């Protein structure tokens, strides 16, 4: 393996880890989609405020995920973002309206009323999860694009990456992408219910049964997950062999077999998620389910990214011109940039440490209504 290949693999792994952490942190969005309910206002306040203290971590992780993709695989950034314009724009709009909603929803003079901002949170909760899932779906099921670098010399029409006229809308209506999107959505809702159980002192007194939500959302998620895995393992993929791309039936299944070490990781992660759901749904007191599902979510998503990108697999297959498909080899930054960024990535453990340290101090006790009422910064 050359130095460039090593760095490309390393950066794909970092992208996979960021993707995994991002999907886990989407519990914030999942929670936002659960705010419309018949629970008393006090219960809703606890839910909003427990989410409001974490929304920026999810938001920041999304931004860093984008930045890391830009730095390490710029051709993906150029092709997917510039091509699937409406898909990404809808995702971005949903995050724009989220970013102000916590701070503004209950402020005097917010002009549009609390309900509008809560609707913004719901839209972000639903659209953000589903469409991010759709975007990840294109990594397996492809997009309708071409890449022609010599176009840059054509003054009248210089764009190198071109997408179908539907500009990403076709990805949104692809049932396979939607299946993944809905799976992410229900996973986020499941994780949100588990997060509430862990971070809020007691919701029972408000008549809110979080454990039944874990069970319902977790069950829907499990069925969607099984469906997605079946579709994925049966799917054809594109692999780069001897100078061109070839269609390989059941490519992702074969990738699992070839890179067998991902099988125990994938199964272990899946079991963690299921165990977290089961323990929390059928216990009256167990509060730590979020840790099981969180770890499981991160591990499963990492393995999915790895089988999408490793083994000369096209991680963004072109349905229009297979030879224009993107792999980690043909879309990456140069060896110098990847090396610089690899040095920069050494700071990641420090970042994780201080986030952990700060939140262990801030979250050492579950949020109570009393604490909330005494706080001078409420959402």
């Amino acid at each position, binding site marked *: 393996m050359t130095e460039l290949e090593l760095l490309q693999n390393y950066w794909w792994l970092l992208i996979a880890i960021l993707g995994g952490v991002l999907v886990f942190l989407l519990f914030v969005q999942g929670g936002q989609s659960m705010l419309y309910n018949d629970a008393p206002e006090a219960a809703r306040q606890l839910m909003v405020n427990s989410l409001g203290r974490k929304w920026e971590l999810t938001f920041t992780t999304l931004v860093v995920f984008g*930045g890391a993709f830009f*730095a390490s695989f710029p051709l993906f950034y150029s092709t997917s*973002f510039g091509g699937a314009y409406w898909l*990404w724009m809808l995702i971005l709009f949903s995050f724009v309206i989220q970013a102000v909603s916590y701070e503004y929803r209950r402020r005097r003079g917010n002009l549009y009323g609390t309900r509008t901002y809560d609707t913004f949170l719901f839209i972000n909760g639903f659209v953000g999860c589903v469409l991010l899932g759709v975007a990840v779906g294109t990594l397996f099921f492809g997009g309708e694009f071409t890449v022609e*670098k010599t176009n840059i010399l054509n003054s009248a029409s210089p764009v190198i990456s071109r997408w179908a006229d539907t500009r990403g809308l076709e990805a949104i209506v692809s049932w396979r992408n939607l299946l993944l999107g809905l799976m992410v959505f229900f996973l986020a809702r499941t994780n949100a219910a588990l997060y509430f159980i862990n971070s809020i002192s007691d919701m029972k007194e408000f008549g809110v049964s979080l454990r039944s939500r874990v069970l319902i959302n977790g069950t829907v998620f499990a069925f969607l997950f099984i469906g997605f895995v079946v579709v994925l393992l049966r799917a054809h993929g594109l692999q780069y062999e001897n100078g061109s791309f070839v269609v390989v039936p059941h490519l992702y299944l074969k990738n699992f077999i070839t890179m067998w070490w991902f099988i125990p990781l994938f199964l272990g992660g899946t079991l963690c998620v299921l165990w977290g759901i089961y323990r929390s749904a059928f216990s009256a007191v167990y509060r730590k389910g979020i840790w099981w599902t969180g770890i499981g979510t991160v591990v499963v998503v990492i393995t999915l990214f790895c089988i999408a990108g490793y083994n000369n697999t096209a991680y963004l297959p072109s349905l229009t011109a297979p030879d224009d498909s993107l792999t980690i080899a043909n879309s990456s930054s140069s060896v110098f940039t990847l090396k610089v960024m690899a040095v920069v990535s050494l700071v990641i453990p420090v970042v994780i440490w201080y*986030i952990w340290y700060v939140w262990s101090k801030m979250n050492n006790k579950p949020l109570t209504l009393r604490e909330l009422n005494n706080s001078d910064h409420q959402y």
Partner: protein
Amino acid sequence: MNDLISTVDWSRAQFALTAMYHWLFVPLTIGLSLVVAVMESIYVRTGEERWKGITKFWMTLFGINFAIGVATGIILEFEFGTNWSNYSWFVGDIFGAPLAIEGLFAFFMEATFVAVMFFGWNKVSKRFHLTATWLTALGVTLSALWILVANAWMQNPVGMSFDPAQMRNVMTDFWAVTFNEVSMNKFFHAVFSGWALAGVFVIGISSWLLWRKRNVQAAISSMKVGAWVAAIGMILTFWTGDGSAVAVAKVQPMKLAAMEGLYDGHSGEKLVGLGVLNSAKKPGDNEPEMLFEISVPHGLSILARHDMNAFVPGINDIIAGVDVNEQGDTINTVSYAERIEAGKRAHDQLREYDKARAAGDDSAMQAAADSLAKDFKFFGYGYFSSPEDAVPPVALTFYSFRVMVFGGSLLLLIILIMVWASYKKVSFLERPWLHWAGMLSIPLVWIVSQAGWIVAEVGRQPWVIQDLMPTTAAISDIPASSVKLTFWIFAVLFTALLAAEVSIMVKYINHASKGNIEK
């Protein structure tokens, strides 16, 4: 072709719109993070509870502004991909790195410690909280550093080479990219202007409190901190602005010429203080440059080259490739006509390289690559058909520069008066003209700040990367109608959110000031 131009124009409009909205909130975030850190330091040091109340008052305003700054910021990063996809490939190898570093070093720091600022008062010790507040300010500043490194690199592309095999630029020297001669001035100029803006914001709100005779002691205390931060910020902004002007004169002389509306340069060039441009003036004609002007003799030579007799080239000189060196000798640089020829040659050589590569002809590839390397520094000119294509909008740059400088000077005067006044007797601070000066300085400082951004960004047009890539070549393959639609969505959405932000701030200030801010 027409649709391409339309897409380019709408994409430029959208980027300008989103960047200018973002720039409404960012300088306040930068400066206010410092203001609250200073106030909280006073609280921790003196132990006076009133400073805790004052800190919380300004921290709340910081939080209201921070949220919308985050909301408008996410778009900008992703717009490089959605609307400028060619750019993302052509220089993503270099440009992506500072964006990723910004996220890793700055955004996580902000996101983590800002939560301690707001929710940690009763959960962590005083000193831990103060540390978190300072780390938030540091995170905000680091964010500015990396995004301005990226921006400065676009204006002065260094530390890179062109890889013809991949038809893109690759980084060769990270430190040259980070510390290029534009970036540090740009970074400090932007950060100090943020301090000045936030300081003026504090002065303005404090003036309103004094005018309404509410929380007078808190207002005076806030005024002292705000005025000092503003004064230091504004003085340093002028200082770094001078450094920026010298850098612009060196690496973007066309931008400097546009800032001055200067077509024909001279030795000992005057600086137009106030003036009205002749809108009929075009490069190469004999029309007068100005319809009216009040000038400072030798001013531009001093500003641009720190030499009162230095020659400063105008637009016609730059197009013709004429300059005068320090010894006073006329020298010929490369004219724009020659640059266009060189750019087109570079394009041809790249085509030749590609053909040779397809044919597997290594020697032809090497020959094409060698020829390309000679002309590559003018690669972007190959997209132009005439030298006038490479001239930025002169009027907007010229007038924005004057708004920035004169507005900034007026603000400096007001700020210095406020520093002085805040140490006078309370009776002096009760003068309504002083209150009104403080209050009116709030809109003025935002106008000045936006004008500065216009000078920097409009003045560098038509380049997205100086000399290498014009905006027309940086675009995505999107119909103009789609970009037009997203432009209007952003325009409506951001305007609605701005209205909400201002309304919330006004209500909060009004409501909080009816009680005791110091508690």
